[in-house]
């Protein structure tokens, strides 16, 4: 196994564990934002100096910089999908509680 394989698999596992273990706390939300910013900066850098990505890719055992970016994108996509899913579930629950409060308010008794 070369460097990139180990690195990618470890980062995928770390993300999944992080997302599933942490309650949806303020802290974890902050980390999501930090990770997003870092991802964006890395993107800007890659646009400005595309050849540098190939250099980094070589260190990690990948041939081309574009491949490295693709792998990074896969991890980021998985992360954002899971995050969105959990977010939606959270909203669904709040929505259900709101609807429940309305329903209980208008309860009708039989004659």
């Amino acid at each position, binding site marked *: 196994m070369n460097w990139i394989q180990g690195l990618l698999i470890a980062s995928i596992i770390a993300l999944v564990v992080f997302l599933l273990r942490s309650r949806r706390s303020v802290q974890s939300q902050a980390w999501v934002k930090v990770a997003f910013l870092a991802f964006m900066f890395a993107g800007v850098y890659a646009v400005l100096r595309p050849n540098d990505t190939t250099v980094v890719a070589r260190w990690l055992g990948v041939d081309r910089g574009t491949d490295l970016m693709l792998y990074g994108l896969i991890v980021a996509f998985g992360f954002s999908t899971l995050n969105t899913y*959990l977010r939606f579930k959270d909203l669904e629950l709040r929505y*259900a509680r709101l609807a429940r409060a309305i329903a209980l308010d208008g309860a009708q008794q039989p004659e």
Partner: protein
Amino acid sequence: MPSETRGAWIVVPAFNEAGVIGEVITALRSVFTNVVCVDDGSADGTGDIALRAGAHLVSHPVNLGQGAAIQTGVEYARSQPGAQVFATFDADGQHRVQDVVTMINRLGSGDVDIVIGTRFGAGVSRPPLLKRLVLQTAVRLSPRGRKLGLTDTNNGLRVFNKTVADGLDITMNGMSHATEFIMLIAENRWRVAEQPVEVLYTEYSSAKGQPLLNGVNIVVDGFLRGRMPR
């Protein structure tokens, strides 16, 4: 009327069941004083029929799913004075009222907090083959259900006491709530027992039954549960 039915509340979650809800409520009301129907945003007048048949009616303004409807019904029932025993009962007419009475008597012996119906007990007819396979797979995929010694984790018929009703907090709105029920039993260490019940597979209830593929949703939801704020 036996005295133990007086503090009993039967929760009937219903979504577009206008064809059968009247009969189901009438049958329940012939034995139980307190029946609450949770109309889960039906468009066919299910709620009105249930109210006329003698049920208390709580109507969701929008469709939320069976899990949410059960939670709403239990919240309504547990706030009523004198409520001691609670039951969930499907609106499609697949359960028998006499099974609820048996289960309430079982709960009355005081050594358990919740009694769950099972389709795999002695003396009851077994479900059709395909249904049986699905249900037994669901049990195998539920480690907690296995640990608790349960044979049918997806039965809609449950009877429980005030402790369980007060602690109940179903967060899964859809059909995954059966699994969540089992998780809550395990987490709260509620004492559980099973009671063999007859489930009537009428053409109507089979047509409305859960598609097999929904099992995937249930497994994934079960895995992701607990990451949610409570």
